[in-house]
């Protein structure tokens, strides 16, 4: 009886399509988080190390890199998606489908993540650098033995924040042919007035964000000792 009512409420929903869209979204999310992290950590490190008074102080490198990061962060993501179509096609062979969304997602997210990394590094006490240099550590050793382990908990927190921002970016990427839950919500929910489909996709994204936050918090908690 109750099952029938529920089925009636979501009469427009095609569960296999929801399933495919969820997998698409997870694919976009997974790879964009991965590449944003891989690119963002070194960029954040360079930003930090070349800034004033730091180990590799270099005004020129810092200014250029900082400018590029700021420019990328100021372009609205929806514009970035369109501007990047030729570059995306060159990089992954297509600008369509889940695969075609990865380059713009990464370009949209890594500058944000790099700034988070830079900020975490700034939080490290100057005394730690003093100690490391007194021990005769080289810059490379300072990065691997000291900086990265010290910022690990806040790095995980930053990845969590970035991943959550990327959930909504993936929805936007859907509108220009990327697929996934965002695409579904727009095609059925907006263009065909199927509110139930839209509701389901929103609920799924809320669940996704919650799960990411809970996992991130948990990892940070066991790392902060």
């Amino acid at each position: 009886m109750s099952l029938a009512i529920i089925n009636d409420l979501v009469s427009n929903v095609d569960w296999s399509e929801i399933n495919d869209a969820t997998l698409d979204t997870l694919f976009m999310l997974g790879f964009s988080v991965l590449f944003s992290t891989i690119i963002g950590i070194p960029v954040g490190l360079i930003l930090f190390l070349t800034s004033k008074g730091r180990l590799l102080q270099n005004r020129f490198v810092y200014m250029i890199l900082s400018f590029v990061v700021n420019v990328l962060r100021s372009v609205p993501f929806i514009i970035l998606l369109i501007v990047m179509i030729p570059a995306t096609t060159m990089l992954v062979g297509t600008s369509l489908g889940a695969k075609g969304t990865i380059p713009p997602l990464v370009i949209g997210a890594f500058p944000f993540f790099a700034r988070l990394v830079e900020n975490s590094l700034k939080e490290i006490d100057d005394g730690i650098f003093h100690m490391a240099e007194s021990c005769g550590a080289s810059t490379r050793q300072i990065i691997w033995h000291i900086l990265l382990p010290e910022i690990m908990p806040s790095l995980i927190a930053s990845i969590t924040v970035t991943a959550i921002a990327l959930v909504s970016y993936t929805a936007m990427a859907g509108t220009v042919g990327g697929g996934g839950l965002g695409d579904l919500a727009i095609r059925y929910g907006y263009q065909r007035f199927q509110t139930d489909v839209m509701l389901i996709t929103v609920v799924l994204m809320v669940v996704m964000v919650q799960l990411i936050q809970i996992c991130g918090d948990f990892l940070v908690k066991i790392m902060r000792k």
Partner: protein
Amino acid sequence: MIKINGLSKSYPTKKNKNLILDNISLDVPVGQVFGIIGKSGAGKSTLLKCLNLLERPDSGNVIIDGVDLTTLSTSELRKERQQIGIIFQHFNLLSSKTIFDNVALPLKLQGNHNKAEIKLAVDEMLALVGLTDFATKYPASLSGGQKQRVGIARALITKPKLLLSDEATSALDPQTTSSILELLLEINQKMGITIFLITHELEVVRKICDKVAVIDGGKIIEQGNAFDILLHPQQPLTRKLIIEEESEKYLEQVNHYYQFEKSSNKHILLLSFVGDATYQPILNIISKSAGVEFSILRGELGRIKNMPFGQLLIEFECDEKNLATACKIMKEMGVHYEIVH
């Protein structure tokens, strides 16, 4: 062990030359505990940073164990730094690493030790500082004194010949301070490590220093054996730093009182004695053989490092002739005196 020649350092701004260290020369013998004492802003920290060239001096040499650090290349300097242990006021431990890994860090940075060697060395160091049971804990769960013990273990893991201490006890309470100082003294005596420390606490100099230099405004204004400097400081600034305010006030009061006192046969003397003389019945001998009456106005007995000392403010009641005899006796007995009034 350390020889500093004509070291100067400034942080020039457009308007100002900002000389922080002004032509400093020091000689620290092997195996001694050498203290630099001064108020904050006197240039102590900069001097310490110049010792391992974290700050490059404008001029002068820093010669450690026969090597002039100012002539070394970056990678040679890195090797030399690994031979110098250093401990800090705020410990500077890595919060992401266990106590074991914090202590092991300098060895890992040297890169030529295997796991078994590292474990052996770390265990030995943790035993030395009394933290064997804390190996798997993290710095956040330790008290200040324990953190400094970890700092000491980390500084000594590379078996350095020289240990630098940057206000190592300034963030600790008095009780913890004295336990850390005892540990440093033990390290100095058992392992023969030269210790160079900077501090603003007289207590530190008194407890562990053999030699001390007083720094003010970027200049060394006085240096010598710890008990000489502590008992008879010569420079007004040193006196101010060393003689506690209270006793200074007391001296003023006494001076004031005797200005009105007509009697010319009252004399006030500040006697100081170190070592064996401390156990002699000095006043009794003087009183008997010079025929003077005395009363003690103020006094202090204690130890400077391991040397017992006493310092008494005495009023002698006698004529000039007897006073001269008393002074002669004191000289013979090795008692240092200063006629205050």
